[in-house]
């Protein structure tokens, strides 16, 4: 091998022009690959940090009947399938070795009603505020009002939604008991000046694909924005869970405490359309052969309203957010949870966060794919150029190679000589490219470039561009470089191997 490397090394200096062409291509390819890798890693980690740790958790559990897996951003507005019996599920889930914590929520799609303007559609996350804060920590920046206390009823309104409500309905929501903070006004609202209509209360109408549920008034307790990715995640506001349950027609903790009969439960959870279908207005038919249906429903609702509040975890949910212990991947966790639910006959399904966030996750995937395609294209071009240059080099060295073969060099010697030459170039120029790429990634991260553009925010994985590389990325770059070099050298090697001593002599 020493002889091969000696010849290869000296040939590199002998053919300086070709060395520089191949070297430049390898340098550029490695640089682009490294920077691209840095961006993808930054994007992944940014989304991981900002979405998983501040919005969705690693895994979202939904009812097994739930078909659409974009549970946190369903475009259809379809009500999610409900999850009951959470109190019995909770200990089982927390006993799993890979689960760190869980947060049961109600995901609701509502209209914000307005007597004079257009209703605004809006996603609400029904949460226990304390539990939410315990789960996500300080992921929100409360701009006005304050973070709600435990048990407090009302909405913590997203600043993005507040602007949207103003744009469609013409009023500006402010927290109860707070004066207007003009610093936070949108440019359009600022133009209204003294004529600006203010409201400290919003009326939500629960929506489903089948029909609407109840409308509920809700006090604005505060206005917030997500500390990261607010442009993308700010389509959600937080509502106390009991209000949202009532709004979308789920059992809340109080109805559970009353322990309604099966028939009553059906009535309370049924969509309005179902109720109409089962109710005979003319005859006053009953559901169970006892009291008239309308009276039955009235009795339940009346009892519920007078019953003291019970544990919020007793009610109905439609999603459970899961945070995994460090070192566990969502993909593996989904696999294990699926097997667990199957073996325990628990009617739940596990969904990875990237699927649960719907379009946002898909956009991130598309961007990663586009970056990969770009990097692959660069490498494809590099392979072609290197292949051509080396093939020409092989043809120009027919006399030398043929003479080596005549003297007794086997074909493998010729192959190894070409591989060694290209390998040395790849190691040097590719290595330089990876090094330069790493420095560029570090430099870009130090610039703290920030954006308010939604697309760029996905590309950045947050509000700030934070590309980063770890050892695995660098190793991946090196492996890819080796692979590209191998591909590029295949054809020239086959050309060189076909050179016979006779070819050399016929040129002599």
């Amino acid at each position, binding site marked *: 091998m020493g002889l091969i490397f000696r010849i290869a090394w000296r040939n590199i200096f002998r053919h300086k022009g070709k060395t520089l062409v191949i070297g430049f291509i390898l340098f550029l390819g490695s640089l682009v690959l490294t920077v691209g890798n840095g961006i993808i890693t930054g994007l992944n980690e940014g989304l991981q940090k900002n979405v998983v740790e501040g919005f969705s958790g690693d895994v979202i559990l939904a009812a097994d009947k739930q078909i659409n897996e974009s549970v946190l951003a369903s475009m259809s507005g379809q009500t999610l399938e409900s999850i009951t019996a959470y109190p019995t599920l909770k200990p089982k889930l927390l006993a799993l070795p890979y689960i760190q914590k869980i947060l049961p929520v109600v995901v609701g799609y509502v209209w914000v009603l307005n007597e004079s303007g257009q209703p605004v559609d809006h996603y609400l996350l029904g949460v226990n505020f304390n539990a939410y804060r315990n789960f996500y920590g300080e992921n929100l920046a409360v701009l006005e009002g304050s973070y709600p206390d435990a048990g407090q009823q009302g909405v913590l309104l997203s600043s993005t939604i507040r602007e949207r409500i103003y744009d469609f309905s013409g009023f500006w929501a402010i927290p109860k008991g707070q004066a207007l903070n003009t610093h936070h006004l949108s440019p359009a609202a600022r133009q209204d000046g003294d004529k600006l209509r203010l409201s400290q209360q919003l009326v939500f109408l629960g929506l489903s694909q089948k029909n609407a549920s109840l409308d509920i008034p809700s006090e604005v307790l505060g206005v917030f924005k997500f500390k990261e990715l607010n442009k993308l995640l700010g389509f959600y506001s937080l509502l106390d869970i009991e209000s949202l349950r009532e709004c979308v027609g789920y059992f809340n903790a109080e109805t559970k405490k009353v322990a309604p009969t099966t028939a009553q439960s059906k009535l309370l959870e049924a969509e309005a359309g179902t109720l109409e279908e089962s109710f005979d207005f003319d005859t006053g038919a009953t559901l169970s052969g006892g009291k008239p249906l309308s009276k039955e429903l009235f009795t339940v609702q009346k009892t519920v309203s007078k019953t003291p509040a019970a544990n919020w975890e007793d009610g109905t949910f439609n999603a459970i957010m899961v945070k995994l212990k460090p070192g566990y991947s969502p993909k593996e966790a989904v696999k294990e949870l699926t097997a667990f639910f199957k073996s325990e006959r628990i009617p739940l399904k596990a969904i990875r966060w990237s699927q649960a966030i719907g379009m946002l996750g898909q956009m991130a995937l598309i961007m990663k794919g586009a970056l990969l395609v770009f990097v692959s294209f660069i490498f494809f071009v590099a392979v072609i150029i290197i292949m051509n240059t080396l093939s020409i080099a092989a043809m120009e060295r027919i006399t030398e190679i043929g003479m080596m073969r005549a003297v*007794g*060099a086997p074909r493998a010697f010729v192959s190894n000589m070409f591989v060694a030459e290209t390998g040395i170039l790849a190691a040097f120029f590719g290595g330089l490219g990876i090094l330069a790429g790493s420095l560029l990634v570090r430099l870009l991260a130090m610039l703290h470039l920030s954006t308010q553009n939604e697309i760029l925010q996905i590309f950045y994985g947050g509000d700030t561009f934070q590309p980063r590389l770890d050892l695995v990325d660098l190793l991946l770059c090196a492996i890819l470089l080796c692979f590209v070099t191998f591909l590029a050298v295949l054809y020239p090697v086959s050309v060189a191997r076909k050179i016979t001593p006779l070819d050399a002599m016929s040129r*002599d």
Partner: protein
Amino acid sequence: MSLIELKDISKEYPLGNTSVRALRGVSMVIEKGAFMSIVGPSGSGKTTLLNLMGCVDQPTAGTLLVDGQDVSKLNDKDLTRLRLYKIGFIFQSFNLIPVLSVLENVEFPLLLMHSGKPSEIRERAKTMLRHVQMESHMQHRPSELSGGQRQRVAIARALVTQPQLVLADEPTANLDSETGNAILSLMQRLNEEQGTTFIFSTHDPEVLKYARNIVKIRDGLLIT
């Protein structure tokens, strides 16, 4: 004892839609220790004959035995080994590996053979360079040598493996007469001292003075 046997050897090369017959049924036996010249005008088939004997080409018809082995039955790997261990080549244009020094060029076939420790290989190469009086140029690159010096290095490389057969295709064609005579004298000395078989092609009558055996060839046929 025969080293090479040619039995009714023919060689045709395709040329467009037709073919050129370079050799037309050549038969001969070359004994070990021969110092033989193949003589003929350009295009007579001298180089083709040398190429066949050196196992760098295959005959179209006939049988060629090199040291008792039928070369038509050997694969590329075996032919390469045969060239490495039994045959030395001296080309017309003193083909040396340009990126290697004189010493490294002579070491080259020994390194391919993995014949001994690096220090032993180096010593053998130096000894051979002393034989061809190129010891003082060991560290030079081929581009720094004259034509005669390069040819001496090529001879050293051809002989360093102590092959049974050395083939030289017009070894003095590109040399001045003084250098050419010196090279032929050297080959003659090595033939006498080491018993190496030399076969060289030429169309220079001056060169023929050195040959013990002369084979004349014309239009692909042996005429003596």
